[in-house]
C-alpha cells in the first residue's frame, strides 16, 4: 500500500489520495469541517442529508438511486460526526473498480462527477431547496434523533458526554437539537450550503486504484470559482471543572447502565498521546484489561465493561451494563480498578499485552478501504498525520514511567447512571 499523498487544491481545501490496487472497490469522500455550534448544528446536519437526496441533474432520489444502481450498485452516503468541538459533514460515493465492469462503464469517473454535482449543483430554486426534499430530510433527522434514544447503551454514553461538556461545544449533539431542527426552513439550508462552500475546511479523500488525478482536477476547478473565507477551527482539550457530577436517571429497563467520565489532560497533539491510549487499553480496552478481568470475569457483574479514549478531547469513558441492584457494587469495582491504575499498580504483562493488541489492530487497518479512509479522516487535523505503522512504532516505545506519570493525572469528572425503575 502506498501512503497518503496530500495536495492543497484551494484555500483550506485538500485532496488526499491513497492509491491501492488490492481492492475491488474505490471510494471518494468529501468531508467538511465546521465549528460545532448550537445555532447551526442541526442546520448543517439537515444540509448534509438533503444534498444526497437529489441534484440539478438527478432531480429526485429515485432517479439518483436508479443511476447508482446502473453503476453496478454504487453507493452514495452521508454522515455527520463530532470531532472534539467540531462538526464534520461527510458525503461519500463508493463502487466497483472499473476493471471489474463487464462493459466499458467508467464507474469511478461517473461517481466522481455525481459527487461533484451533489455538492456544487444541488436541486435549488429561487434560493431554497425543494419542499419535497426538505420535508424528507427534516422528518428523517427527527427520526434519527429519536433512534439514538432507542439504543440505551448509545443514549447513556451520549448523556455522560453531555453532562461532562455542559459549557463546551463538545456537549452539543452531532445533529444538534430537535427545537432548532424544527425551526429550520428550506431557505436556511440554502444559506447553510453557501456558508459551507465558503467557510468550511474541506478534506477530499480518494482510496482506490483508479484515476485519482482527474478527480482531483474536477474538484480543483469547482473550488476555483468559489470565494473562500475559511473559519478558524478550534478544539480544546477537556478540562474538568473540579466538581464531580453524579446524575441518576430512571427508566423502564431490564438492565441499568453505568457510564463514568475521566479527565486525562492529554489529547491528540500531545506528545504523550500514544501513552494515554495505551493506558486506556490497559484499563478496559482488551480482554486482558483490568476491567474485563476483574469486573466481568472475577465478579460476574456484567457482560461488557470497557473504557474508551476520545482522542480529540482527551477524556476516557468507562461503560457497563449491570443489574439495577448491583449498580453500587459495579461502580465500586470500577473505581477499584481505576485506583489501581492511578496508584501505579500496572504489571509488565498488562503493558505488553495491551501494546501487542493495539499494534495488531493498527497493522490490520490498511486491509480495508473504510479502515484506511477512517484512519486518515480522524487524524487529518493533527499537527502531524501518522500512518498506522508509525503509530504502532510509537506505541512500542511507550515506557512504564510515562504510564505511571500520566496515570496520576486521571481525574474523575462525571458518573451517569441510567437506572431501571423498580
Amino acid at each position, binding site marked *: 500500500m502506498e501512503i497518503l499523498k496530500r495536495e492543497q487544491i484551494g484555500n483550506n481545501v485538500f485532496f488526499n489520495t491513497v492509491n491501492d490496487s488490492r481492492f475491488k472497490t474505490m471510494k471518494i469522500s468529501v468531508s467538511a469541517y465546521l465549528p460545532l455550534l448550537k445555532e447551526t448544528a442541526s442546520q448543517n446536519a439537515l444540509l448534509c442529508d438533503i444534498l444526497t437526496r437529489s441534484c440539478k441533474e438527478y432531480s429526485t432520489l429515485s432517479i439518483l438511486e436508479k443511476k447508482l444502481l446502473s453503476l453496478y450498485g454504487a453507493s452514495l452516503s452521508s454522515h455527520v460526526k463530532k470531532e472534539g468541538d467540531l462538526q464534520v459533514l461527510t458525503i461519500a460515493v463508493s463502487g466497483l473498480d472499473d476493471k471489474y465492469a463487464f462493459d466499458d462503464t467508467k464507474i469511478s469517473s461517473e461517481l466522481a462527477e455525481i459527487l461533484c454535482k451533489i455538492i456544487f449543483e444541488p436541486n435549488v430554486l429561487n434560493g431554497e431547496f425543494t419542499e419535497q426534499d426538505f420535508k424528507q430530510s427534516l422528518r428523517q433527522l427527527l427520526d434519527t434523533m429519536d433512534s439514538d434514544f432507542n439504543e440505551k447503551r448509545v443514549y447513556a454514553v451520549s448523556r455522560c458526554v453531555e453532562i461532562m461538556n455542559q459549557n463546551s461545544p463538545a456537549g452539543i449533539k452531532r445533529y444538534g437539537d430537535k427545537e432548532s431542527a424544527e425551526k429550520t426552513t428550506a431557505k436556511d439550508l440554502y444559506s447553510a450550503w453557501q456558508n459551507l462552500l465558503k467557510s468550511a475546511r474541506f478534506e477530499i479523500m480518494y482510496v482506490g486504484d483508479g484515476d485519482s488525478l482527474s478527480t482531483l482536477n474536477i474538484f480543483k476547478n469547482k473550488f476555483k470559482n468559489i470565494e473562500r473565507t475559511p473559519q478558524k477551527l478550534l478544539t480544546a482539550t477537556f478540562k474538568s471543572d473540579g466538581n464531580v457530577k453524579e446524575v441518576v436517571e430512571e427508566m423502564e429497563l431490564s438492565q441499568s447502565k453505568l457510564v463514568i467520565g475521566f479527565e486525562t489532560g492529554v489529547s491528540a497533539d500531545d506528545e504523550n498521546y500514544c501513552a494515554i491510549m495505551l493506558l486506556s487499553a490497559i484499563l478496559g480496552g482488551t480482554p486482558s484489561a483490568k476491567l474485563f478481568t476483574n469486573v466481568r470475569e472475577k465478579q460476574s457483574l456484567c457482560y461488557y465493561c470497557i473504557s474508551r479514549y476520545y482522542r480529540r478531547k482527551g477524556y476516557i469513558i468507562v461503560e457497563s451494563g449491570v443489574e439495577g441492584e448491583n449498580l453500587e457494587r459495579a461502580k465500586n469495582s470500577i473505581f477499584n480498578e481505576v485506583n489501581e491504575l492511578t496508584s501505579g499498580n500496572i504489571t509488565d504483562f498488562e503493558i505488553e499485552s495491551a501494546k501487542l493488541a493495539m499494534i495488531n489492530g493498527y497493522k*490490520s487497518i490498511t486491509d480495508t478501504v473504510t479502515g484506511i479512509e477512517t484512519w486518515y479522516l480522524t487524524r487529518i487535523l493533527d499537527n502531524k498525520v501518522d500512518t498506522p505503522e508509525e503509530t504502532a512504532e510509537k506505541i512500542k516505545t511507550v515506557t512504564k514511567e510515562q504510564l505511571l506519570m500520566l496515570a496520576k493525572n486521571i481525574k474523575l469528572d462525571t458518573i451517569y447512571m441510567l437506572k431501571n425503575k423498580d
Partner: protein
Amino acid sequence: MNDIKEIKSVRTGDKYYKINHKSGLTIYVYPKEKYSSAYAIFGTKYGSINTSFSVDGKEKITVPDGIAHYLEHKLFESEDGDAFTKYSKTGASANAYTSFDKTCYLFSCSDNFKKNLEILLDFVQSPYFTAETVAKEQGIIGQEIKMYDDSPDWRVMFNLLECLYHNHPVKIDIAGTVETIAEITAEKLYEVYNTFYNLNNMVLCVAGNVTVDEVLQICDKELKENEQHKITNYFEKEPYEIVKPYTEQKLTVSVPLFNFGFKEKAGDRMLTAKENAEIDILLTMLFSPSSELYSELLEEGLINSSFSYEVFEGPGYFSILFGGESRNPEKASEKIKDYILKVKSESLSKEDFEASKRACYGDSLSSLNNIESIANTLVSSHFSGNEFFEYTEALAEVTFEDVKNRLNKILDVNNCALSVVKGE
C-alpha cells in the same frame, strides 16, 4: 493424506484452496496477496436451534435453550488457562459467536499467525467444564440476555419469528432465558460438545496473508483424527401457515420499529446459489432505494433510511424479512403487500432486472475485498452445501424469466406477519 483442491473464479481470477484434512475437518484457505493481516474462523454446524438430537441412531436427547451459546462462552477456558490470556501474548484480536445454526471461534492478527492458529485449534478441542466454572458464567450471560431484552432491534425480530413459526426453535432467543440457562450443567455441556464438536461436523476457514503450507503445518500437528458419527437433528413438523399476523411490544423507545416477514416454504435442503441469486436480484428490483415502492413509502413518510430487507434462511426455516423504523408500521406493511400483489399481476421491468443484476454482481465482488467477510462466507457456504464462487457465477446466468418465475413462488401476501415495538 490431505486432499487439496484449487478453486478459481472464472470472473475475477481469485482463488482459494479446499482441503479435506485427514482428521475429518474441511479446511479452506484463501490467500490475499499484499494484505497485512490474516483472519481465521473455526466453526461447528451447531447453533441455538439444535436442541433435540441423537447420535448414531441412539436415544433422542433434549437440552436446555441457550446451551450452544453457553458452551461458546465456556470453551474459552481450558484446564491450562483461558484462551484470552494465551492470545494476549500474541496480540491477536479474538472473538466468538453463536447464531441459529452455527457456533464460530475466530481471530484476526498481523503477526504470529501460526501461534494464533495453534491457540485456536487447541482451545476449541480442549473442553474443560466444572460446576464452579459453569456457575460463574450465569451472571455474565444473564446480563447479556438482559442487554438484549432492552434492545428494540433484537426484540422486534424475535417477536416476529414467534408470529411466523409454530414449532421451529428458530423462534427461541439464541442465548435462551435466565431460567433455561439455570438448568445448564457441566455434564450437559460435555454431552453437546462431544456430539457437535466433532471435526467431521466442523470447518476451518482462513483468509489473508497466509499460505496453505502454513495452515496445514499447524493443522497436521493440532488436529486429532475424529471418528465420524451420524448426528440426527430433530425439528418438530412446521406447518406452512404462520402463527398470527400481528404482535406488539412496549419498550422505552421514541421512534417505533417494525419487522415484517413472509414465511416461505423451507425445503429439506438449503437454497442453491442460483436460487439465492434469483431472489437477491428480485428483491433489489422490488425493494431497493431505486424502486417505485421505496419512493412511495418515503413520500408518504412511512419509512426512513433505516429500511432494509434480508433473506433469512437456515435448516428448516426460510423467510424474507423487512425492517426499519416507522411512525405507522401497519400502513407501511399494507403498502408492501399491495405492491407485491400489483407486481405479481402486472409484469416486471426488464430494465430494472438488468440494473439489479449488475448491482448484485457489484455487491458480490465488493465482498471479496474483506478477509473477514470472505472467511465468514466460506463458513456459511460450506454448511449450506454451496461453493463460495458459485453465487457470482450464478448471478450471470439468471434470466429475466427465472426472476419472474421466482416471484410467483415467494412473497405470499396471505402468509406474512408484522411485529412492532413502540413506546409506552
